[in-house]
Structures are given as C-alpha cells and as structure tokens.
C-alpha cells in the first residue's frame, strides 16, 4: 500500500499528528485536500465586506537574520547580543555606534532598539542607508514588530523540545519545509495555503471572478493556493501579449487547438493555463499597457530593487482592482512578493548590495515607495503589508555567516496598523539560554498562525470556525488576535 495512513480525526491533536506524519509521503494521497475536514466551515464567505482591503505578503526568502534587523540598543541588552554573536568584527554583531542612526523606541515598554543601519563602505548606493526609511514609517506609528515568532505545533518549552521531539514542527531548520509551513499557516503538511483559503472565503465579494483574488508578482508559491483559488501570476513589467504574427488564420488556429479534445491531463491543463492567460489579458491589458491607462502611477520607486519593482506592480494592480468602474472591481485581494538572498551562510556582513545590509535596505526603501504610492492611490488605510520568512538565523557565527535557526522577527506596515511598538516579548539573545538552543536558535513564543490569523481577521475572516479551519493549531495559543491591527 503506497499511501501514508490517515488517522481518524478523534481530536484536533491526532489530526495534526496525522497530517504531520503525512508530510514525507511520496504518494499523492498525502497531499490531496481532505475535503471532508475543511469543506463545511469554508462553504460560505463570512462577514460583511465594505470598501476595499488587501494584504501584501513580502516573503524574505532564505531565512532573514532577524536579530540584526531589530537589534536591542540599550547598553546592557546590546552587550548581551554582542557576546552571543561573537563580537563586532570577530563575529556577527553590528557596531553600536552605527546603530544610533536607526534607533527606535518600543512605545509599549519604552525599551530601545535599532534597525539595521547599513554597513558603510559598500557600492550599493552613494550612502548605505540601511533601514532608515522603515524607521521613518515606524516613527509615524505605521510599523509594528512581532518578535520571536515562528513555526510551532503548540507552545513548547526547552525541556519539552529535548524530551518530546514529536512536539516540534516537522523538519525544523529545513528551508523548503519551514517555508511551506509559513505558507500553509500550520506546522504540518497541507495542500492549501492560508492566503488561498482566505481568498476562498472572501472572493465572493469580488466582481470579476476570472481574476483570482490572489495575485503573485513573484511566481509560484504555496501561500496563495486555496480550494478554489490559485494565484494569478504576473511579472513586474506588466503584460505581454502572445504573438501570432498578425491576421486571423494563425490566431484562429491557436484558439481552436487550445479548445480541442486531448487524451492527457497534462495536455488539458496546458490548454487551461493558456486560456486563462488570454482571458485575464483581455481585461487587464488596456489598464496596464496603454499610455494613459488606469494602472499608471507617478510615484517613483528605487532603482536596482526587485522588491520595489514588484511592489510598484502591486500598487498599479491595487489601483486598477479597487476602481469601482473598471472591469475588475475586487474588494478583497492578497498579493505575494518576494526578495531572495537571505540564506547567508556566508558574507552576512558584506558591504553593499550583496550583504544582509543591502537586502534590508532594499526592503526598507521599497516599502517607503510603496507607502507613497498607496498615498497617491488613496489606499493607505486599505492595504496592510507584512513580512514572512522561514526562520531566523543562529546568533553564533559559522565563520562569516549564520545558519538556520527558528524564532524570528516579523513586521506589519500600513495605515491600519497600530504601529510604533512591539507585540510580544523580545527574547534574550543568549546561546543555550532558557528559551534558546545551543547556537542561539530562539524557541518561538508566538506562533506564526497567531500573526496570520490577526491579518486574516482584519481582511475580513472574522468567523471563529473559519479561522480555526484555516489555522488548525490556533486554539493551542493564548490568543488568536495579537492586536496590532486597528479594527
């Protein structure tokens, strides 16, 4: 028998263990949606939808070294951080004198932090600005940080981590598995992601049903796959028509070939993708490609910044989508963009564009430009941007970089974000501490589904049963709403 066994769902925990056990199965049965389990709770959209709202997921791919993104600044905690990271120059610690330029305060506790200040001497831009722009947004109370967040099946102590390996998220420290778990919104296997299932819930309020509520500018992802929802994928350069060489005979032949009967499901699916491309193109092309099209914006975005390029397209699509006269008329959307390169086993502190500093500077500058574009559109309060990354990185060095770790720091940005503070306790940055492993891997104190559920609720999924189905582990945690969104 080539299928993994599926345990009867006597309890949520057993169901989760069954799913977790299915994660490695080579058979398709492990990945086919468990329809009986998710169908009823997701049958109908919930809540009353007014106006337009969108979530924008910024995926920091590779495992963001988050404790150099948000660094403790008061002398005592900075010193602890520096020791754990092996010192300035000898290890991975950032120089405290540089941190002064990006210093922030947690309005909830008064504690002092700093964002990555950049590393001078590189050739990325004329001045290595680090996260100065994000700091500006934070000081306007538009950015909220969520510290020590990660994948968890349920809250776990360090003793339990060692004594009961079955309680750990499956395949901890593995890129692909941890990335998928953040996309799924659960520390186990799934055929659907939480962006897609949220899209399933809310797409009923969208007028144009051919265009998915989930739009990706960064290609394929698990996050935006739901039961009826798949991501519509776009590039940063807008839409390019399929060439036919002009005239009607070739165009007609192509259309007929794409409608013809085929014996293979691979051939049939190829036709389906081709035809979806045409259908959406017909709607979007006028808005995005015409010089005076609706999808034009004037806000400038930073050069040499692929995240900025992606967010610019997001802004244009938001403008087009929320317009109440144009042929999209979506009220709820979820976007996915991505910046890669964070898997810094080497050269974490490299200067310029290729180090962690350069990547975070790109994130910071792209987000400020996006904020300004949303202002141009009039959608600042309607769009919430948030980060995800598969894990943070070891506090200790491997020579000139850091390796895979666990609990990280995420942040949300937007007009509806109750920002200027942290939501959750910033961890003690020590090696082999009370809540950290040998190399400073932090045991998360916040489950990533608590964060995701907070965002999903703001977008419009308010029904408790629906949230519990999208996030099966949610009831293991103290709260389903971390409170960083203005209702």
């Amino acid at each position: 028998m080539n299928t993994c066994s599926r345990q009867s769902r006597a309890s949520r925990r057993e169901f989760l263990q069954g799913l977790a056990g299915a994660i490695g199965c080579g058979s398709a049965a492990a990945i086919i949606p468990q329809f009986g389990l998710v169908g009823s709770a997701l049958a109908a959209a919930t809540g009353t939808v007014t106006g337009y709202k969108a979530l924008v997921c910024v995926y920091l791919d590779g495992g963001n070294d988050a404790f150099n993104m948000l660094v403790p600044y008061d002398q005592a905690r900075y010193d602890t951080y520096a020791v754990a990271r092996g010192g300035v120059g000898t290890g991975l610690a950032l120089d405290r004198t540089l941190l002064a330029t990006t210093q922030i305060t947690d309005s909830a506790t008064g504690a002092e932090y700093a964002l990555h200040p950049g590393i001078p001497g590189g050739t990325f831009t004329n001045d290595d600005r680090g996260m100065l722009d994000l700091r500006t947004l934070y000081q306007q109370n538009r950015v909220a940080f969520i510290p020590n967040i990660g994948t968890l099946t349920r809250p776990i102590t360090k003793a339990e981590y060692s004594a009961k390996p079955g309680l750990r998220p499956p395949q901890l420290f593995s890129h692909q598995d941890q990335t998928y778990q953040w996309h799924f919104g659960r520390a186990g296997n799934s055929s659907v992601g939480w962006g897609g299932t949220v899209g399933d819930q809310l797409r009923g309020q969208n007028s144009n049903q051919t265009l998915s509520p989930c739009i990706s500018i960064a290609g394929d992802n698990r996050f935006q796959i739901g039961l009826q929802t798949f991501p519509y994928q776009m590039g940063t350069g807008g839409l390019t028509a399929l060439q036919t060489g002009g005239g009607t005979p070739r165009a007609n032949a192509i259309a007929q070939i794409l409608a013809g009967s085929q014996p293979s499901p691979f051939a049939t699916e190829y036709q389906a993708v081709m035809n979806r491309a045409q259908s959406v193109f017909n709607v979007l092309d006028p808005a995005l490609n015409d010089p005076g099209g609706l999808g034009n914006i004037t806000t400038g975005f930073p050069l040499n910044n692929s995240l900025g390029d992606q967010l610019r397209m997001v802004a244009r699509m938001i403008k087009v989508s929320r317009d109440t006269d144009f042929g999209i008329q979506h009220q709820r959307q979820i976007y996915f963009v991505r910046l890669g390169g964070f898997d810094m086993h080497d050269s974490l502190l490299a200067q310029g564009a290729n180090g962690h500093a350069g990547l975070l500077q790109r994130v910071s500058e792209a987000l400020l430009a996006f904020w300004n574009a949303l202002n141009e559109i009039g959608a600042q309060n309607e769009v919430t941007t948030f980060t995800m990354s598969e894990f943070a990185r070891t506090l200790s060095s491997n020579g000139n970089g850091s390796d895979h770790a666990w609990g990280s720091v995420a942040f949300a940005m937007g007009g509806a974000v109750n920002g200027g503070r942290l939501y959750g306790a910033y961890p003690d940055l020590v090696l082999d501490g009370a809540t950290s492993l040998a190399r400073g891997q932090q045991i998360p104190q916040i489950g990533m589904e608590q964060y995701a559920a907070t965002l999903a609720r703001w977008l419009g999924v308010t029904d408790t049963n629906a949230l519990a189905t999208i996030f099966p582990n949610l009831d293991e945690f103290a709260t389903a709403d971390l409170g960083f969104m203005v209702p």
Partner: protein
Amino acid sequence: MPLRFFRLALVMTAFLASSGSHAAVYDTVYRASFEELAPEDQPANDAEAARFLTQATFGPTTSEIALVRQLGYSHWLDRQLGMPLTPSRAFLQQLGTDLAALVPTQSLNPNHRVDRWYHTATYGRDQLRQRMAFALSQIFVISDQNGAINQEITQVAEYWDLLGRDAFGTYRALLNDVTFDQSMGKYLSHFQNRRALGARLPDENYAREVMQLFSIGLVERNLDFSPILLGGNPVPTYDQNVISQMARVFTGFAYSNASATNIFGGSRATYLPMSCVQNEHDVGVKTVLAGVVLPANQICGTDVGLMLNVISAHQNVAPFISRQLIQRFVTSTPSPAYIGRVAAVFENNGSGERGDLGAVLRAILLDPDARNVNPPAGFGKLREPVLRLTALWRAWDAVAPLPVAGQPPGDIRMSGTVRGMSQTPLRANTVFNFYVPDFQQPGPIAAAGLFSPEFQITNENSIWAVGNTMYIHSWLGYVGGPVQNDRPVLELAPLAALAADPAAMVELANQRMLYGSMTTATRNALTTMVTALGAASASAIDKARSVAYVTALSPEFATQR
C-alpha cells in the same frame, strides 16, 4: 509480420577509453555475429522511434530516427553509452583566451556558458550523456545566480563536464566528484569551511543538502519509493544532530592549489577538485548518518570518503535517485512497480555492481512502461520548456548562427533571444531546482493523484513567455528569412515544399515534432489555417513557418506520453 533485421554491433573500445569515468563492469563487447533484433527492441515505425528519442535526447531528428530503426533501442543505447563527452570547460577556456586576444578587457560572461550548453544540446552527438548531465544538474544543483560563482564561468562549466563525464559511471563516484567540486563547494559553502573554534561552528549547508536533495531525502523509503511506516507514521532519515555532526566532516576544503596548511590559500583560477587542509579539518569522533561513528584523528580524505560511503550505501538512494531520473526522462508519476524495477537495477546492475547509472538509464528507457506506445491517461508529463526549444531546433535541422561579428569563432549566440523560459541550465533560483519532484498542479492533475513538477514553473505569465520564445525561433527564425545572428534558424524547406497540400504539410509537422501524436482537433485547426493562408495568397515559406510555430504551441508538443 515482423521484419528480420541483421545488424552488426560496433566496436566501442576506443570511445570507452576516452569517455572518462565509467562503470567498470559496463563493457560493450565487439560482436561480429549477426543477430535478430527482438521485437520489443525495435521500433515498429518512425513514430515509435521518435517517441523514444523524445524521451532519450534533446529531440528527434530524421537521421537519428533512422539510426534507432536500424540499430534497435538496445544497441542505440550501447552506442550512446560509449559516446565521448562534448566538452564545455575546455571550449570556454579557449573562447575566453580568444576574446581577450582580440580586446584585452574582454572576457567570458555567464551567458557564454549557456550558449555553449544550447549548442551542445542541439548538435552534440552525445545526446544521452548530455540529457543525463542535464537531469543530474537538477538533482545535484548548483546555480550561477549565486554571487560566489556567478563570474566563475570556467569553473561552472567544469561542473557541467563533471556531470557529463560521470553520467554513466557509478553513483558513488559521482557523489565523490560533486562533493569535491569547487563550484559546488562555493555554492553550498563547504569551500573553506573551518572546524569549530570557540563560538564559531562549521557551516551546515552541505551536510543538510547532500542528504535531503542529493541522496536519501527526508523519510525512509522502500525500493519502490513508498515510505516506510512505523506505527503509521513516516520515519525521518536524520535529525538536526546528525546534520551538526556531519557538518564537522565537511571541513578543511580549499582551492586545489592551496598549500597544505593554509585553507585560504591557492587561487580562484583553478577549476580542479578541492584539496583538503588537515589543520582546518575536524578530527574529533563524529556520530553521523545511521549511527555510524567516524573515529578520531582521520585525515580529511578518509573522513569524507567514509562519510560518502555511508550516504551512498543507504537504502533510500536507489529509489530516491531512480524516481527523479524517471521523472526527467519519461513520466512524472512512475508506478511503484516501475520505480522498483529501476531501483533494483541501481542496487545490482546484473553484474553485482551497485549504483551503475548507465544501467539505471537503460532500465528506465527500456522498461515496458516507457516503451508502451498506448500508455494510461496519467502517463507522461509536461515537457520542460528548454527541451521543447531544443526539440523544435532539432526537428527542423536548425542552422546555428554565425559567430558574432568581429568575435572569435567560438562566440555563437545560440541563446541570444531565449527569454522567459523559467529555467536555464545551472541557473535555478534555489538549490531546490526549477521545480520539486512532488509538485502537483492544483485541479484535475492533483485530484488524479498525479505529480507534475514542470507545472510548478507554468503559469499564465510564463506560458506565454515560452510561447513567444517559440515565436522568435520559428516565425522569426527560419532559413530564407532575415539574417539572424542571435539565434539558430529553422530549415523549413521540407515543409514549404508541401505548401500545395495542406494535409501533407500538417502530417510532416506531426512526424517531425509530435512523433505522430497529433490529435484530430489540432490537425483540423492546422489544416484550416494552411488553407486559409493559401486563400490569402501566403507564400510557401509563410505557410511553413506558420505550421512550425502553431504546432510548437500545441498541447501535444508541450507534453510527452
């Protein structure tokens, strides 16, 4: 009634001697006898031969179809298994020298390697070896998107040659060569990986990926790839402790020309296998995969060698590697029985040798599941975009562009206008390749329990980008059209010669591009198109390039079964 073919097998010893690393027991013996081809070993017609070549090469050509019919499958494979490697690193070294001789500031750029790759794929005689190297490059992934190797074109080309040289050798030899390759060392950061000192611990990247991706995967498996279950749950093959211990094994690697005591010595100009500097190698006791204990105080070469022995001996390797190779050549969802048959050959090639990749490849291509010309509906796959492009070129005997004006003869821009394919050889976005083996396209494919890795890069954006690349290389790339120095051009004269007979034109496209699999709907659409073009007084060549392009967009061309 089957025809009786007499054939004379060819002596291949000269080829064997020059083809490098090679499974010792794999010998082609000179046969002077005349033997009949077994019925299952011979294609019944051109279409079957072309289908086989679609699986085994970068696309059928009329001459290769004839050769397969003459030799039969087995002896065609024999010949290919003895075919020497078309070199890339030496070629690119010469090109680099020639470029600099013309203009001293000129040097190789990463796209020269890609140009060479496409040239070899399209025109190389070692088709099976290159297909295998391409398949292996999607398992043992390096990518020149990585900043550490992006400008090391010669070294990355050496890695490609390595995969080609080892394509038909043993898995163990391949694993050794991959581990010690300098580009792999830089890509997965075990190059200059130092033993622990104070808070600094060795990099774990290679230790993790060599198991997760290059050998055994995440859970224990049977020979047919089904997971082994304990109490109903899969069994992990390793945990983080194992990785941390194995990270200590992969320490001390340095440039080939580093001194014996300086891990940072040597020069990046070398492309030879990495050396291992003993004073930076962890010499402690290590408990690694499967509980094996590596004793203390071993020299690096011994430590690494034993480690690779342990990995290579794991029972997962046969099904894990076999299944992915089947996916690259034949079908995305091989049956457990098919996987089991191939994995059994991996375990024992019939002469008691384990890991014989040449034998594995023969088993994959000669398996009844692969040779069945009426396979079940779920059999087959979406074809990789790169392989569709090379197939288009080979189907029409594409003429390579002339060398770039003013540049050396080796500067041939095969990929000058290749865009948006979502895959470039040795240039994947991550170590997880362009797509994962377990990807299932949501919708009917997933509902049917089928896998479809290539659909992971197929979306409303990329599918048109690939289509437009086909457009550039057919409608805008044909002999007789405007001269193009940045792309090969299709020789469509055989198609144009049939311009007065739409049905014949369409059938030729069916034979050249679709190995006879054209559906009624596609045939009708193409025939109608040619007739309509004729009514509008289109030229013969315009009809021909229309047929070539539109056929390249067809579902039949995009898939194989």
